[in-house]
């Protein structure tokens, strides 16, 4: 691999985050095929050099084969640039992408609120609804959902939960105020924008009209980063439910003690 080829590969990867040798889903363009061939022929030291370079940019250079994950043709490989949770990549920008959610809202916070809420609901469809743990990368082929399902999930979330909350929450929570102000027509619009942004960024694949599936890149990133990024936030939920659980446990234990003492008294 010459420095020129190294440059071409790194530029392509930074733009597309993925180089595939073969794909059943899409036609591989000549440039990508050539780069995949260069990577296949590269020596171990050259790949190490590329890995180190990408680590410097804030990525892990990951190569997967049919042995590692489903959905890769035997004998072929997929190269991915996976973001590292401990070294932010300065070359990438996610804020401006998310702001495209609500270009006319005038407030970046509105875009971010809608994006994060729909983002969590789409994760729920791909993971929670399928009883799939975040580390189950291999199940990415079965993560499909439709646009209608996502719209419905968001609608249920807003109508069945948000609207039933005490309106006083609105004084402290902008998320509540924003979602509460939804008039019934915004959900499909925001979901459509969300899906478009996710597909453009390579996080979702549109496998058929209005049918989507998690991309391999996203599955790999979720597996790599969940523990340090989202898992700590999940603790907030378990803490929220903790007092109730403890109270229930205490109640059960006290009842058992009472029953035992009653039995002793009877005897």
């Amino acid at each position, binding site marked *: 691999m010459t420095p020129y080829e190294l440059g071409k590969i790194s530029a392509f990867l930074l733009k597309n985050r993925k180089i595939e040798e073969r794909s059943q889903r899409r036609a591989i363009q000549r440039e990508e095929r050539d780069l995949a061939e260069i990577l296949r022929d590269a020596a171990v030291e050259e790949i190490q050099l590329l890995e180190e370079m990408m680590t410097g940019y804030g990525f892990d250079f990951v190569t997967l084969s*049919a042995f590692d994950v489903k959905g890769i043709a035997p004998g072929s490989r997929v190269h991915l640039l996976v973001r590292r949770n401990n070294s932010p990549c300065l070359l990438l920008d996610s804020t401006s992408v998310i702001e495209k959610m609500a270009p006319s809202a005038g407030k970046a916070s509105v875009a971010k609120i809608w994006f994060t809420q729909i983002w969590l609901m789409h994760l729920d469809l791909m993971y929670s609804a399928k009883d799939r743990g975040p580390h189950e990368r291999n199940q990415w082929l079965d993560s499909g959902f439709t646009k209608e399902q996502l719209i419905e999930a968001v609608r249920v979330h807003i109508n069945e939960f948000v609207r039933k909350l005490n309106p006083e929450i609105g004084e402290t929570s902008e998320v509540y105020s924003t979602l509460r102000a939804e008039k019934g027509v915004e959900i499909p619009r925001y979901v459509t924008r969300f899906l478009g942004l996710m597909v453009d960024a390579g996080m979702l694949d549109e496998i058929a009209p209005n049918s989507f599936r998690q991309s391999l890149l996203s599955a790999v990133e979720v597996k790599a980063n969940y523990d340090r990024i989202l898992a700590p936030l999940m603790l907030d939920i378990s803490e929220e439910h903790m007092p109730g659980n403890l109270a229930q446990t205490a109640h059960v234990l006290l009842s058992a003690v009472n029953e035992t003492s009653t039995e002793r008294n009877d005897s």
Partner: protein
Amino acid sequence: MSLPDISLVLKVSARLVDLHDSRRNYGESPNYQGDVRSGHGDGRYVAMATHCLDKLHDFGRRSGDEYTSLATLTQALRVELPWTQEVDVEYVLNVLSRPTELKLLLLDGGVDGHVITEKDTNLVEKSPNVAEFRLSWVGRRVLSMATNLDDEYQDIAYIEGDVTKLIRALENGKLRPALNFVEQLNDQLRVAHALLVSLIERGGRGLREAYSEMAGHTELMSRANELVKIADAKINEILRTDRDIDDEDVPIGLVRERVRELSRGIVRYSRQLSQLSAEISRGISSSVDAPSFAELARHWVKQQPSEARLNQIMSVMGPSEVKGILAMGTDYEGTIRSRTVVERLPETVDLSEYAEPQEHEFTRWLTANRAIIEQRIRDGGLSLEAAIADGLATMETDEAFGCLVTALSALESWTDLDGLILTLTDELSKAQLPALEVMFSGLTITQRSSINSTKDSR
């Protein structure tokens, strides 16, 4: 000797029988209908199902168990069954992707036993929400059995026997069976590896159970790898001795490549087993159950994380784009040829054919006449006609007239005089130059200060 699990064979036939007895007419809705054992006797459904399974097996092997679209399958089927309609294929696949309603009598060691319905009989898996299909685990397994009926156990535990078959085939110079054996082994190992990866990713209590089942697999793989080395040596022997082999149309290099792939696969599977062992020794609870992201969304409605935290999450897991403009490989396409050395030809320059560029002539003409022209302008103005009369259109060069017109019409590019006014008149004049006769409209250059001084003197 215990009988093999023939329910696997029943699983293959059950859905085919159901399809055979279906009363659905061709071209009707592809939605699943209840089984009634009468149906068509022309065997079309069974034929379509058999071909579907075969094609799905083929597509799955080539794509790593990716789903195949209905359109692709129909197209592939039409090569062999030209009368196939897509809606009929979809119906067939919809049936194959559901479990059978046949009852099985499970004896389970007792005499009476009990009747069960076998749920795990769908030969095909349908992608959620999309008309795309792939073989189910059962479908793959039964097809392997059908492909090689002598080999009733396709479990990875029997890999040694399979590699031995490969060695025997190579010893006898039978390359086609050898290639089939090794490809089947690779396929089998890949599926076993993928299952193991899924198991480790899933984590939890299932790990320990799986590990106890795979207790001997590490030694097994070690022995299998030794056998693969023998197979590799047999191939080298064939290459070295150049002895007669059957199936000469099968390239020996391809067989060798597949055998080495098998060796690499065994090593990877062994590594995965080590990882499984490590996971278990670390403790069972390393798995993360499916978290409720909807619950997290509800929590965030009440209390959203800080802006910095959200940015951190999105920068690692959200969508992103590259900042600015990055140079792409295509930007340089054709401009940089690092590996091509262009041979330099000796350059020959013939000065006799050298023609001076026109701008050089203009520069030289202007250098000679600039002072005169500026003086004439300062003295009350200069018209084109007067300049020709003064001989400025014939001095120094043959192109002097062109130089004069250029100089007068582009004053700002060569003179520092202020307040210049260019006046054009409609009157045409003629002049006779040595080489040509020219006709031109009136062109006069004057300086504002000289006009003022003329007025003042009046």
